[in-house]
């Protein structure tokens, strides 16, 4: 189930960083916003789970929009650091608000998330994401990543589309957050800090930036890896974080472009079929 949640997180960050090219170091924040909002709505207002989940995701998307407006003027590492800063600010606020329970977090969350709900969420997220990526909207995202100025020259309002990518990514992350809260039944601000953001980023890069299947694979591997190392032997268990670090380095050196880098390997993208169609049209056109 944790794998499923991480898959959603990785896929959604991949939308922002992999497809749209906007490096974000604060993705866990949106997960946190989703988790807190969904939990508060469920606990305080007794909103049903699904509704709470959607409200949480929508709130996350709203925050994605809010911070996107000013910060997306920034480029590259400056954007990355601004998202990091935003994440720390949010964490700091969560840590000090009464309603979020401050450092105590929120507890007594009913356990609702189960394997079916997670599976359904993963499928829905990936499905809708693929639809988006194959559409005019998704192509605009990629165009922005490839060359922002040329994208503007094509009539793409790059600011709006970057914000849109951020908001969609935040929405999905918000869903993951809600699922997380109703799985572990307890949340506190430190679940959604910098380290979590970095972890998600590692999943995306390991799998291959800009490749949905890659993000899924990366999330799966990095979720299982520490647990796998834990269970291999007691000795390794003790050193497992050391191995984890080494493995990250080794994997990057062996495949710097990520495990699945080329978009043509993107099995989860229906453009595999799209490509065949293109080829056919191309053949016809070429004659």
């Amino acid at each position, binding site marked *: 189930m944790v794998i499923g949640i991480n898959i959603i997180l990785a896929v959604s960050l991949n939308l922002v960083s992999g497809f749209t090219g906007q490096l974000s170091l604060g993705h866990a924040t949106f997960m946190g916003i989703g988790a807190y909002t969904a939990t508060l709505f469920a606990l305080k207002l007794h909103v049903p789970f699904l509704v709470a989940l959607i409200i949480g995701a929508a709130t996350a998307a709203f925050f994605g929009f809010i911070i996107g407006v000013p910060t997306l003027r920034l480029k590259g590492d400056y954007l990355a650091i601004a998202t990091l800063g935003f994440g720390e600010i949010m964490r700091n606020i969560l840590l000090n608000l009464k309603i979020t329970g401050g450092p105590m977090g929120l507890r007594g969350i009913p356990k609702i998330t189960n394997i079916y709900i997670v599976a359904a969420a993963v499928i829905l997220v990936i499905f*809708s994401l693929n*639809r*988006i990526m*194959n*559409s*005019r*909207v*998704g*192509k*605009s995202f*990629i*165009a922005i*990543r*490839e*060359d922002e*100025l*040329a*994208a*503007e*020259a*094509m*009539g*793409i*309002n*790059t600011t709006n589309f970057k914000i*849109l990518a951020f908001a*969609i990514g935040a929405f999905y992350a918000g869903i993951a957050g809600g699922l997380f809260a109703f799985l572990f039944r307890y949340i506190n601000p430190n679940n959604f800090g910098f380290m979590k953001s970095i972890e998600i980023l590692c999943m995306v890069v390991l799998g291959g930036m*800009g490749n949905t299947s890659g993000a899924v694979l990366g999330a799966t591997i990095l979720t299982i890896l520490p647990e796998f190392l834990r269970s291999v032997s007691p000795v390794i268990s003790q050193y497992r974080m050391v191995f984890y670090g080494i493995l990250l380095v080794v994997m990057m050196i062996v495949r710097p472009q990520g495990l699945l880098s080329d*978009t043509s390997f993107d099995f989860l993208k229906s453009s595999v079929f799209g*490509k065949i169609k*293109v*080829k056919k*049209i*191309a053949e016809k*056109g*070429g004659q």
Partner: protein
Amino acid sequence: MTLLEGKDLTMVFGGLAALDSVDININKGEILSLIGPNGAGKTTLFNLLTGVYSPTRGSICFKQREIKNLKPYDITKMGIARTFQNIRLFGEMSVLDNVIIGQHCRTNTGVFGAIFRGPATRKEEKKVRDRAMDILNFVGLAGEAGEKAKNLPYGKQRRLEMARALATDPDLILLDEPAAGMNPQETNELINLIDKINDMGKTVLLIEHDMKLVMGISQRIMVLDYGKKIADGPPEKVRNDEKVIKAYLGDRAGKEVRAC
């Protein structure tokens, strides 16, 4: 009829006036060439017309509307498209997708449309795809539709840039040194292509250092030197202009040009 009128256009970069009170007037349907020595301000003028920079001074009227403070994407929507001096394709995307992106401002599927993919969306997608293929056929790249843009050889990349610009359905198309890096044969093909574009009723503004190309297809030529306009007129007149020969063509090249 005037399609675009720029008045008193001035662009200063840290004390240096790359453009200095230049007036430009583009008539509907013509091929106007912009020539001048390196660093004269030609690309800068393109950047002003397409909203990449906003001018230090002056005004730009396109279709009777002031556009000098508009963003590039708004200007594209109004009907000006361009290519870049240094090729700027979406390298990781397919040739076809590059052209599809070009139609961005003529389409309007949003996120929800994309997810639910109703009949309207599907119809639009088909239309966009068909039109993209038409354009690729037009520029002769249909056979490469599935290739990644960055894998095309240079000459074809140049043509793809033009295809992408055409896809935005412009009234005015700006071409920045389209023949650079092409051999004479490819240049000949390019001349045909520009003529065909012009025949479709599109107005063309062209920057080029290849005089054979410029003299061959321009209806009018405008010459910049050190940010100032030094000549403006039909090719015969411009190539015999003393100032132009002195500043730009040089004696030897000037002779060749007059010969062609």
